[in-house]
């Protein structure tokens, strides 16, 4: 019969999306391909090999990267846990606690880490930490990460909380649940998908951070980004490509998992 009039379709949008994907993936694919390059130099193709993957685990820099990866994960998990908790509490205050003094200011505050350019945060934190004698180390990184992860955790959590009508909690209260029980037994489970994506976002943001970490980190403490930066600025080495490829695979695994979790959450 006749062609279907689809008001959702715009000519060219699909092409742009594909182009967009191409631009996003081209560099990564190049990295993946070259990680299998059997050559000391990235500029010369020396045939297929897994030697750089061996190098990642047993090469001279392996120890450094292992420690850095561990640091990154420990910091990212802790920062994500704490910032998710703070963000959940803040979202409850801002969306569920009616009016109170300083509410709009609080709103600005929660989003502030997002608004202050990263370099300013980095420099300001460094100076402040040394001014108050808060010695650079693990803790400084952790604290700084918690701060800038809060708005990222807050966004999906608040979005989710906003979409949950408070009538469920009222119903719980009507059925003899205290406020805390209503929160724990009703609101929290309903929020789970938002909290999970807030956590993941915070985790990834923390795992990714370079500028602030580089400024506030203590002597000799490396996270993955600072370690990679230290080793890569002089020029990309094939072992870095191998590390990146591994990270990409881990990420894909992780995203896939979180996606499956999210989908399960959505079904309910």
């Amino acid at each position: 019969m006749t062609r279907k009039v689809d008001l959702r379709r715009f000519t060219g949008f699909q092409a742009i999306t594909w182009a967009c994907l191409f631009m996003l993936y081209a560099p990564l694919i190049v990295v993946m391909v070259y990680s299998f390059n059997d050559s000391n130099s990235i500029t010369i193709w020396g045939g297929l090999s897994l030697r750089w993957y061996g190098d990642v685990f047993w090469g001279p820099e392996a120890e450094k990267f292992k420690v850095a990866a561990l640091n990154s994960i420990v910091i990212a998990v802790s920062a994500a846990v704490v910032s998710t908790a703070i963000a959940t509490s803040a979202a409850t205050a801002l969306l569920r606690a009616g009016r109170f003094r300083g509410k709009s200011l609080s709103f600005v505050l929660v989003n502030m880490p997002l608004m202050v350019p990263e370099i300013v945060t980095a420099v300001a934190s460094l100076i402040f930490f040394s001014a108050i004698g808060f010695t650079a180390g693990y803790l400084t990184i952790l604290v700084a990460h918690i701060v800038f992860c809060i708005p990222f955790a807050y966004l999906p959590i608040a979005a989710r909380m906003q979409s949950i009508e408070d009538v469920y909690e009222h119903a719980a209260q009507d059925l003899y649940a205290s406020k805390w029980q209503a929160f724990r037994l009703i609101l929290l489970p309903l929020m789970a998908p938002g909290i999970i994506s807030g956590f993941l976002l915070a985790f990834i943001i923390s795992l990714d951070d370079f500028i602030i970490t580089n400024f506030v980190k203590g002597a000799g403490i490396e996270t993955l980004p600072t370690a990679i930066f230290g080793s890569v600025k002089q020029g990309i080495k094939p072992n870095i490509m191998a590390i990146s490829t591994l990270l990409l695979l881990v990420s894909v695994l992780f995203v896939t998992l979180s996606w499956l979790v999210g989908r399960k959450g959505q079904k309910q």
Partner: protein
Amino acid sequence: MAGGGISSGGKGSDMYEGLGPRLILPAWAIIGFFLVLPVGLMLIYSFLTKEFRGGVIWEFSLAAYDQFFFDRGLFGDEPPKIEWTYINIFWRSIWQAALATVFCLFIGFPTAWFIATRSGSNRQIWLFLITIPYWVNLLIRTISMKFLIRDNGPLNEFLLWTGLVDSPLHIINTNFAVQLGLFYSYLPFMVLPIYASVERYNFAFSEAAADLYASKWVTLRLIILPIVKPGIIAGCILVFVPSLGAFLAPDLLGGAKNFMIGSLIEEQFKGNAGNWPFGAAISMILLSMVMVVLTLYARAQSKEEASR
């Protein structure tokens, strides 16, 4: 990371009435102490006297702001003229950030639209495809971009091989490379809020417009864009603000040749110049610009909300 993150949420319910201050306290404590105070200290530093080779002397001085706005010649003893150096650096950064924002918007809107109009499960897969690269470290992404576009990198090799060009395209160390880097760094911050808006967009409006004789592109311009505007604005802010202070892309892809605000600030604290009050002053000027933009946006937003 749905849109509307900047505006305050809804009219608010009161289920935990009275607990607000207690619940917001942890956020206040940690952000207040570890962000507001440091930024406050920066503000103070910007009004202090610089110490030679880094550091501050606790004496009030407007020298940092003077240096920003007035040109007193190479030797600092000429009558003051307007200093264009830093204004130009700001201008360049703003221009770069704005270009990157526009670039992200022109690619990001159609992408977000396309994704939001897929059916349920396809939509998830598309979103997934767009976000995966962002699970790889920004640094690695930027470096791989650098690797890709260098004069004899894979891109040029490919283009030469296809015969599309007969000498390598020179992209690396140009403003275009910085653009590309910024685009690559922040695209999802554009796509996701717009996606969230478009997903909520009620296609009955498009149908109503078509019913009232509007073609699709007219509908896009007169109906869709104004209605999903909050998502677009949120996306623009989320791309613009970090681009303004961007540091990696100009450094790695732009060849560190031209100062951007980020590298200018860094230089004051880490580099040769070592002028802390000046670095603090630049930071404060940058911060106040960001705040002005955000305040204007928030005001526009609340005006719009009030009128609904």
